[in-house]
């Protein structure tokens, strides 16, 4: 039985973790071999949804919100006068196990302020993961934050117990990072990322040879970028994300709209509201790169450095490249069908399956789930399509922006809902 103190700690240390966006439990396939309990499901599972509409998949907490650093954008910075707390290792272990057994969560996402120094902090996080795996024989999902500046030896051990590790870049360019987080630099962020990348690649090779070799960070790495605390444009952000996917082999890049905190700090922009629409557009751009085979340059470039807020980036691409349309859904490659506004991954797959049996018409497309209101300007099929005759991008855009609005005013959308109908 716990004392009330544990409940107070949970309040403080969950509250302190709430701005970290990543709650995903995906990408791992850990199976218990009968000698323990729990597993992870590659697709991830959400277990609840908070009033802000976000998914709860993991127990997302800080080990401690004491911190020796003073990053401008962070609520836990040392110069803030806030309630502080630190968990004990076995408290976190017990809460995780007991929540998991009741089907509240998929596992643990543990981060922390920097206590004493990076290595000391990373060791504590690793100890929690180790106890869960070795003592409790827990096979559920574990995501640990890799503390920037932690040494390779400790990261290596952490990687043996965790499914995912993440080093947060937070600020997209180094000069701005230095300005807002004088204690941090890009080297401290990129060096563990690079080390983990090599380890993950080597481990994959090893596991091809020895099927029983212990896995190392099987769900890969992720990172987070704060949007709107510094003046980078979308081209810089999307290009950075693209490079992180390609060169660092990251599994996910998360975008977190800056929440106006610490407004006494004049290095920060004065915002009345978080740039949530921009955050959503960046997630959509990210999806275009990961699931729709778009390159960063097709989404943003010198002539078009920022994502449009009023329409989504796929529609924006189509309007800027109208000469590539209309697409003949009965003939075009899957990749090109994916590029039609109003057709998502699911409908594109159904189209490609169904057309083997015969030509598709508008009614078929509608039944399959294509949003014809948007798609009609960009496709041809077995019937005449008046939508595409002599029409130019300006007219299409205006038509689509006319009431009834095709682009919903978005609040915070989670990754799940993005493009589900776009």
């Amino acid at each position, binding site marked *: 039985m716990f004392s009330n103190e544990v409940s107070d700690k949970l309040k403080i240390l*969950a509250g302190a973790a*709430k701005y970290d966006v990543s709650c995903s439990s995906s990408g791992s396939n850990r*199976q218990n071999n009968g000698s323990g309990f729990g597993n992870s499901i590659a697709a991830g599972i959400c277990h609840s949804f908070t009033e802000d509409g976000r998914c709860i998949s993991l127990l997302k907490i800080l080990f401690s919100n004491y911190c020796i650093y003073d990053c401008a954008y962070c609520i836990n910075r040392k110069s803030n006068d806030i309630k502080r707390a630190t968990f004990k290792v076995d408290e976190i272990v017990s809460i995780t196990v*007991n*929540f998991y057994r009741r089907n509240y969560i998929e596992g643990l996402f543990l981060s922390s302020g920097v206590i004493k120094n990076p290595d000391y902090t990373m060791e504590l996080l690793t100890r929690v993961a180790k106890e869960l795996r070795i003592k409790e024989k827990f096979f559920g999902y574990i995501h640990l934050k890799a503390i920037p500046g932690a040494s390779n030896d400790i990261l290596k051990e952490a990687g043996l117990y965790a499914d995912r590790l993440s080093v947060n870049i937070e600020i997209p360019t180094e000069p701005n990072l230095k300005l807002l987080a004088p204690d941090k630099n890009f080297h401290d962020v990129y060096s563990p990322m690079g080390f983990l990348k090599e380890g993950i690649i080597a481990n994959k090779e090893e596991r091809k040879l020895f099927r029983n070799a212990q896995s190392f960070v099987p769900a890969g790495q992720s990172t987070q970028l704060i949007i709107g605390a510094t003046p980078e444009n979308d081209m810089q952000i999307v290009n950075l994300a693209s490079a992180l996917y390609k060169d660092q082999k990251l599994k996910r890049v998360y975008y977190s709209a800056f*929440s106006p905190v610490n407004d006494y700090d004049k290095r920060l922009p004065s915002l009345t509201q978080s740039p949530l629409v921009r955050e959503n557009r960046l997630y959509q751009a990210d999806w275009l790169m990961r699931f729709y085979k778009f390159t960063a340059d097709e989404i943003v470039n010198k002539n078009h450095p920022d994502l449009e807020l009023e329409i989504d980036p796929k529609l924006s691409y189509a309007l800027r490249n109208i000469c590539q349309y209309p697409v003949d859904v009965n003939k075009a490659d899957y990749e090109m069908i994916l590029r039609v506004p109003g057709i998502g991954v699911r409908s594109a797959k159904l189209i490609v399956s169904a057309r083997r049996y015969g030509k598709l018409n508008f009614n078929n497309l509608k039944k399959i789930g294509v949003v014809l209101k948007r798609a009609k300007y960009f496709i041809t099929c077995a019937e005449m399509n008046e939508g595409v005759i002599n029409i130019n991008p300006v007219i299409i855009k205006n038509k689509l922006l006319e009431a009834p609005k095709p682009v919903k005013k978005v609040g915070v*959308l*989670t990754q799940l809902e993005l493009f589900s109908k776009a």
Partner: protein
Amino acid sequence: MNIFIYDKTFEGLLTLVFDSYDLKIIPDKIVRNENFQASLFGEKYEVISDINKADRVWKGLSVKLSEEGCQKLYRAHLSESEEADMLIFKQIRNIFSKRHNIERDYRDELVLGIKNLSRKVSREACRMLEFVRFQKTADNIYFSPISPGYNVLPLIGKHFRNRLNDQQWVIYDIKRKYGLFYDLKEVSEITIDNKYFSALSGKIEETVLSDDEKQFQNLWKEYFNSINIKERKNLRQQLHFMPKKYRKFLTEVDKF
């Protein structure tokens, strides 16, 4: 009008298909025996579930369809409506009438109908993986009531069997009055008749809960409230992902 009456099992429906071919009679209406009213006007055929007949139809289907194609028919049946029964019946005849496998011809209304229905059932099964909330009892059994719209229990046992393999658990469908019980070895179907359990509300009496149960429920509530960002309140979206009808047994949300 030809009315076929069957016992609402999947086996029964497959037997119905067999009998229909055998008798060369196509039902105009399929009725589940629990809904049967003697006043129904028409020629009545009572189908007696027969494992051998069902098996022959199922084998025939598995020659024509992929494994997934067969599963779709099974899942569609778990939606438990007579319209669904008719749709499945028509689709099976449709499948047998064509030379090649038609399961992905999404131009076909029947194919699409089965696909969409099966998807609805799967989605609800996924929701149960999310929203099952176990309470630990004093005798170390983890208990969760559910009341899904469709009969999804057959689809979710395996998940919990694989995951919570070292604890005894019960998931009980209070609408259909049966549950799954895992006894550390295997999962079996049960019905509960116990004075500490209300079959109506799905609640078990607090006196039979384990000592630390309330504490973890409270910690979970505490967590749920602390992780929320108040300035970004978006109840519409919360409702979209967590519809009211699934909130009944969620420990963390206040009952309105």
